[in-house]
């Protein structure tokens, strides 16, 4: 478990973020209404909220997959508003790892090659160092034996583990996980969640996990609740903190 108190460096900072769709039309809809949020190094936070509350939109903005209508967004201290598409892509590849509900592994590639993919896309040419890094990550998620299997030959839980290893390939400061266990049975879901916590503890990677699953949210250090495009609650999960104190 990361020591939140000592991890002070913000990996993510949102200042008064607004996001509207259909701007200037009769159907203009404001989805995010002034979001202020800071995620520090090593934090393990859950983002919860009902459907339509703006969770996915917020995740897209934080993941640099979309741009805010107004407000400022900093990733690893870098202001992102003025960056062009290529710079945003590079920053995203460097600083942010993604884990989705579905693993979205590339079915044309083996487990190992899938883990290598972010490194390959960034550096251009494959290398032995990439392979070593990917092997180490596959070992970390317990799938070293499955390295040469095609993505389609793995079970849902295994695919999600490979996706986590892939998200870690670039050693990002933050991982955005969108319902990472939503597509798994309870046992596999627990295994994957434990893995996320382990990565957080060992590598100090910050996590922001979007989930509907309150059981999962209760196992995070911090719970951020979004309703109608506003953060209505953002507090440490006392249950977990208390549990840690006892340990």
């Amino acid at each position, binding site marked *: 478990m990361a020591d939140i108190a000592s991890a002070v460096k913000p990996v993510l900072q949102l200042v008064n973020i607004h996001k509207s769709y259909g701007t200037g039309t009769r159907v203009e809809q404001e989805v995010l209404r002034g979001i202020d949020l800071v995620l520090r190094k090593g934090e393990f936070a859950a983002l919860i909220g009902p459907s339509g509350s703006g969770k996915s939109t917020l995740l897209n903005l934080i993941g640099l997959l979309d741009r805010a209508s107004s407000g400022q967004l900093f990733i690893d201290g870098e202001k992102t508003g003025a960056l062009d598409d290529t710079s945003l892509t590079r920053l995203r590849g460097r600083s942010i790892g993604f884990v989705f509900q579905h693993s979205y592994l590339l*079915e044309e590639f083996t487990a190992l090659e899938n883990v290598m993919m972010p490194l390959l896309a960034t550096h251009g040419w494959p290398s032995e160092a990439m392979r070593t890094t990917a092997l180490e990550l596959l070992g970390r998620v317990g799938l070293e034996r499955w390295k040469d299997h095609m993505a389609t030959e793995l079970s849902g839980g295994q695919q999600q583990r490979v996706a986590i290893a892939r998200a870690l390939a670039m050693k990002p400061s933050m991982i955005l996980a969108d319902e990472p266990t939503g597509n798994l049975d309870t046992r596999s879901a627990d295994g994957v969640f434990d893995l996320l916590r382990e990565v957080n503890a060992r590598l100090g990677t910050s996590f922001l996990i979007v989930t509907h699953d309150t059981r999962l949210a209760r196992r995070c250090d911090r719970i951020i609740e979004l309703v109608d495009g506003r953060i209505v609650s953002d507090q440490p999960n006392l249950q977990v903190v208390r549990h840690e104190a006892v340990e």
Partner: protein
Amino acid sequence: MNRYLPFEWIAATRFMRNGLMQTLLIISGVALGVSVIVFMSALLTGLQSNLFRRTLDYQAQIVIIPPEDVARPLRGGEPVAEAAILQPRSQRLRSVDQWQKVRDLIRRMPEVVAVTPVVSGPGFAARGDASRAVNITGIEPDSYLRIIALRDKIVAGHMSVSNAEIVIGIELASDLGVKVGDKLSLSPASGAMQTLIVSGIFDFGNKGINGRNVYVALRVAQSMLDLAGGVSSIELNVRDPFLAETTAQQITTQTNLQVDSWITTNAQFFTAMSAQTLSNNFIRFFVGLTAALGIASVLVVSVVQKSKEIGILRAMGTTQQQILRVFLIQGGVMGLIGSLFGSALGAVFLSFWRGVAKNPDGTQMFAITAEPRLFVIATIGATLIGVLSAAAPARRAARLDPAVAIRG
């Protein structure tokens, strides 16, 4: 993962391998298209060069003759109004005025490869009781043979036209019953007869030419046709036969003589050749377009099928340019592989054609030469078409909004 390939090539080849059936189908389509283009082009080039060769075998590309005699009404004095019928003048055999100067002038033109003076006129060839009307052609062998490949057409004897020698066609030889070494009487339409020895017999593969043309030395023809020191025409060949008309017009402006190119004298033939070339180009264009549409449609489907994967690649740091290249490479590779197979298939078709299209005596109907250049052009062309046809799907893939693509 091949460590000698960059990311884009690795992704492109894996995508193609993954959709193997689609890839093979479109490669087959491109291959068929290229094979048709290669086969048709080689066939048409062979056919045209054969027709072209046959047409220009026995005639120079450009012929310069003296201007025609025209009857002019008398001038001067009071104009007299009368109903007169102006008869065109009969054309007597005349020499090209100052032909040596004209020849030297033409020889200096860069596009001209050979020039020769010719004396040509009507006459009779006789042996015993048999006689035939012929066209007496007096030549300077050295320069004439650079224009008309008469030596290659000799089927008996040899190509020699000294003062006492004559070269005749196989048809005339048969009609008069002469062979090499026999004597032949040659007389102009009006004038003294001369006896010559047949030194060679030619076969142009054209009954009319074989029965009518006889070749003698320039001096012999000059004296027989009463053109002492003169020539009835100057004939020449140029580097590019298809530009003969341009050169002919240049010569006309410089000399004021009547200049005819083979293009105007064989207008129908030339039009037919142009129409053939045009229709071939049309077919090439539409075959190319079909292949391009095939590649584009396969890639459009691929972009739709792989939109989630593209979104993920974008999310993990792949730039728009990289995605663009992944799809352009796929188009290019499909075009390249298709064209290589297509070239091979085209070569097979051509060899099959060579086996089928034969004369009754077993010789080739006409020579088809599949030049390496044709295969190289087809390969480069198909690869370019592949890349170009991939442009639209590739742009679409590159512009996919990763957030939308991932969520579907």
